[in-house]
């Protein structure tokens, strides 16, 4: 049996271990927020935004942001049909309605040309999810939103390191959110971050994330409104601080892995990988191969050959509208078609050249 190649694992050094140990040993009492505060300040500085709030997950960050915007019953939120369910669940929990539209066959992100046809009097926001580290066409999306008085939200859970025309993913919309799940480019085990340049929104998120206790409220245990609690722990933030000190190294490595795959697959016909339009840097979280329609290569075949070679085979996201709690939108042809002929490739930081060659050999075995 060949040694297993996992699709993802974090890059942990003595720095992360030392910071976590320090937080566990010393991060209590007056010091219980030290790593959290440091992580938030350093993350905001890295991203080039004014405010950051560390959360228990990206889902928590999205929930706080939507709630702070007042998204609720009667409101509609436009988003790509291709997303992890975490992007839509806060909208449902808040009583609003998601409107699923198709994705670009090139970037796999929301097809911004389809947005205007779905805008109506109830539309409040557009979610730009930078899928697998690829970037949405933000200039066009922001222009549409401005024309109709809508809010743009960047779900950048998978996009740390991605840059759109000089601006980091997550820093362009009204607010952005990040994930530090154990599979992500930088991790805190579980965790997330809410970021914004809007002071009012930031203050609302702080209140909501403290069970609705007002920032000026002096009375103990007095909640001014119903809120949430999606806080990150100090031990998690300690790991995050260490990862953030290595963020340039970690994001560069992911991009190098993607480029190596692109070079190795350049001779395989009918295959498309993560796009890199001019003026952008792909976050390269999840190198992905999509075979063209008519190529005859299917997801099931890809999964089988990877399984036979003891390589993790991670499926492309199913369309959200195909899930049992939603009404299918089959006209979203790319969202429905691409998962049937695509697969994510392993891309953990320590992957070796020989492991990447093994993966490409598995792909080639299907096409030769």
């Amino acid at each position, binding site marked *: 049996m060949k040694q297993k190649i996992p699709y993802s694992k974090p890059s942990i050094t003595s720095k992360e*271990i030392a910071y976590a140990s*320090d937080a566990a040993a010393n991060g209590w009492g007056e010091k219980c927020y030290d790593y959290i505060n440091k992580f938030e300040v350093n993350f905001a500085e890295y991203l080039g935004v004014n405010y950051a709030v560390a959360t228990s997950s990206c889902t928590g960050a999205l929930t706080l942001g939507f709630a702070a915007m007042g998204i609720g019953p009667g409101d509609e939120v436009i988003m790509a049909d291709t997303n992890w369910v975490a992007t839509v669940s806060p909208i449902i929990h808040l009583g609003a309605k998601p409107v699923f539209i198709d994705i670009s066959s090139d970037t796999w992100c929301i097809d911004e040309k389809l947005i205007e046809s779905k805008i109506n009097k109830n539309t409040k926001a557009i979610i730009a999810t930078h899928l697998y580290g690829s970037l949405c066409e933000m200039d066009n999306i922001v222009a549409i939103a401005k024309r109709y008085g809508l809010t743009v939200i960047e779900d950048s859970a998978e996009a740390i390191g991605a840059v759109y025309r000089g601006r980091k993913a997550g820093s362009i919309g009204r607010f952005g959110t990040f994930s530090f799940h154990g599979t992500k480019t930088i991790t805190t085990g579980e965790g997330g971050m809410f970021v914004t340049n809007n002071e009012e929104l930031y203050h609302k998120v702080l209140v909501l994330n403290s069970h609705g206790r007002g920032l000026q409220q002096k009375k103990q245990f007095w909640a001014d409104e119903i809120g949430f609690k999606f806080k990150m722990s100090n031990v998690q933030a300690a*790991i995050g601080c260490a990862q953030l000190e290595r963020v340039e190294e970690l994001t560069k490595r992911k991009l190098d892995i993607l480029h190596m795959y692109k070079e190795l697959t350049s001779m395989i016909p009918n295959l498309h990988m993560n796009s890199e339009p001019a003026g952008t840097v792909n976050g390269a979280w999840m190198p992905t191969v999509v075979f063209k329609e008519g190529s005859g290569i299917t997801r099931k075949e890809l999964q089988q050959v990877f399984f036979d070679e003891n390589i993790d085979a991670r499926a492309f996201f199913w369309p959200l509208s195909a899930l049992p709690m939603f009404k299918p939108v089959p006209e979203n042809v790319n969202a429905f078609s691409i998962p049937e002929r695509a697969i994510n490739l392993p891309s953990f930081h320590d992957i070796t050249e020989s492991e990447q060659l093994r993966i490409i050999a598995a792909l080639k075995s299907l096409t030769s």
Partner: protein
Amino acid sequence: MRLMRDSPVPSKAVRRLKAEVKLELEYIRGNPLKSRVHYTKPYITELEVEYATDAARNGG
């Protein structure tokens, strides 16, 4: 805060904890101000620190 006295080789974190406790005691003895009495704080031993260290190293 209680430290495990019978641990054969104290970890780096425990050594740091012990040093901080010593400093805090010296500060209290040499300072007329009373130290703060917290309403609560967790009870952390070498075990918790080592588990957290292990989770950071192997549990991602």
